[in-house]
């Protein structure tokens, strides 16, 4: 979907809405409505309950009465009235918490125009460093993505009860520990923005390669992280890293059809049918990368996006400008050095300087527990004809991943080598 800030298009008044359409409105407007209500009532549970009530009301009314001119405004107004009614009922029963929330709400004038900032506040609350990373991810998907707890649990392959507990605990900490609902101060902003981007990229990567299970790509998480990426890039126009992350995700997501073969097997970048790449996403990603280059404030996400852009620019794998890729990796190693980046850089080194140079580069890397390290090393050894060493490395990689699709790929490579040897 295009960025929901531009306002989604709704079916005409006379058309009956089906459940799927209301579901779509729900996904697009849930985060916005919750953000406004949290700001107004200072309490996430009150906000969520009221917004869910409002959507339940919409499901009852819209199919017969038609969609109101401003569905988002209708949801927010209805939810606010519901919350006030509920708090009044509870306040009259001497519920001190409800009384306090009503007072809080009375202090805050309703400003529906400032909705953009409301969602930004909510993102920073969800991605607060005092919350565990797994809790940050769960809260962001739930409150801003509008995903249900069972959906989030399924996506992360944890039992529903575990995920529910994680979310309840995180919301409890926000409330009781007084995690503020605000945009961080100027001095804290860079660190807090990179925290938010890290959460979104984590969701994307989880969708890209499930750590275990049958399906290589969980498309829903990919689409959801891109939606969040669009939102954050839009809300933080002066943070080129937010744009860089969005571009990076778009360029990788564009290859999802080509990345899995007919029988569900993993297809490497070099072997992909580039005709299957999503041209619209690539164009959008490339435009964003160019925009970042103009701003000239490079960061790790922008550099990784630029690397993907070089790949996207090549009509065929053998037309890839590896020299350019290597330059970008060199820059990335200066800005954000890590063994994983060095491993990725070695792939470019192999193309520019040869497999031997790449092999000596990765020999000392502290990545023994990372299956891709052994997979890259195996491939380099294979290219140098060191087949028995390559076979051992593939076996080591196999021992380290449970992902069915990746295992199939590694087993295929291993079989090919053993066949060639015998």
């Amino acid at each position, binding site marked *: 979907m295009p960025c929901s800030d531009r306002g989604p298009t709704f079916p005409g008044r006379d058309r009956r809405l089906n459940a799927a359409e209301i579901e779509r409105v729900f996904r697009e407007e849930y985060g916005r409505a919750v953000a406004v209500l949290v700001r107004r009532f200072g309490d996430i549970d009150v906000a969520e309950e009221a917004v869910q009530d409002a959507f339940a009301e919409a499901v009852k009314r819209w199919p017969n009465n038609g969609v109101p001119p401003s569905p988002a405004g209708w949801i927010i107004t209805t939810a606010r009235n519901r919350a006030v009614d509920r708090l009044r009922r509870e306040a009259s029963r001497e519920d001190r*918490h409800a009384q306090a929330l009503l007072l809080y709400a009375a202090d805050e004038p309703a400003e529906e125009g400032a909705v953009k900032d409301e969602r930004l506040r909510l993102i920073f609350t969800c991605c*607060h460093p005092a919350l565990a990373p797994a809790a940050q991810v769960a809260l962001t998907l739930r409150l801003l993505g509008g995903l249900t707890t069972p959906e989030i649990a399924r996506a992360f392959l944890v039992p529903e009860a575990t995920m529910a507990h994680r979310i309840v605990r995180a919301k409890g900490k926000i409330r*009781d*520990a007084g*995690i*503020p609902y605000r945009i961080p101060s100027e001095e804290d902003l860079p660190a807090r923005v990179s925290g938010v981007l890290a959460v979104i990229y984590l969701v994307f990567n989880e969708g890209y390669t499930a750590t275990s299970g049958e399906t290589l790509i969980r498309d829903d998480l990919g689409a959801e992280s891109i939606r969040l990426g669009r939102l954050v890039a839009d809300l933080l126009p002066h943070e080129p890293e937010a744009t860089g992350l969005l571009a990076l995700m778009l360029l990788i997501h564009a290859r999802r059809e080509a990345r899995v073969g007919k029988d569900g097997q993993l297809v490497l970048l070099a072997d992909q049918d580039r005709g299957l790449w999503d041209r619209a996403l690539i164009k959008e990603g490339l435009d964003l990368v160019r925009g970042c280059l103009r701003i000239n404030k490079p960061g790790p996400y922008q550099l990784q996006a630029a690397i993907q852009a070089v790949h996207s620019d090549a009509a065929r794998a053998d037309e890839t400008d590896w020299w350019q890729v290597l330059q970008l990796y060199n820059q990335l190693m200066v800005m954000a050095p890590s063994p994983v980046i060095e491993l990725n850089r070695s792939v470019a080194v192999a193309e520019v300087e040869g497999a031997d140079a790449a092999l000596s580069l990765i020999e000392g890397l502290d990545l023994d527990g990372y299956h891709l390290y052994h997979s890259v090393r195996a491939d380099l050894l294979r290219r140098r004809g060191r087949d028995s060493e390559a076979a051992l490395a593939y076996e080591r990689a196999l021992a380290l991943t449970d992902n069915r699709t990746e295992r199939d790929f590694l087993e295929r490579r291993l079989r090919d080598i053993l066949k060639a040897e015998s």
Partner: protein
Amino acid sequence: MKQYLMSVYHPEDQALAQADMDAIGADVNALNDEIRKAGAWVFAGGLHPSSTATTLRVKNGEVLTTDGPFAEAKEQVGGFWVIKVANLDEALKWGAKATQACRVPIEVRPFQDETED
């Protein structure tokens, strides 16, 4: 405003040179002044080692007294602050200064709502 407890966790076997103790003492005094000046001060204190602690519990309807801390752990609370600030971000800012001054981990924990005003 909310109140937060900032607990200072000392390794039980920590033996510091006098010079280090003096440096920590000076930094903690300076931090105390800063907290007071900011209007965030409620209370603070340092504790004797956990070997001086006495633990009480009810067993079979009688109060049982034992020598020593409740939990045998490598780190014990060696002191604490109670501060009053607007939110966790402000509390964590003081916590960051406290761990730098004390050179040991600091745990920041909110008081229950009754202490809000």
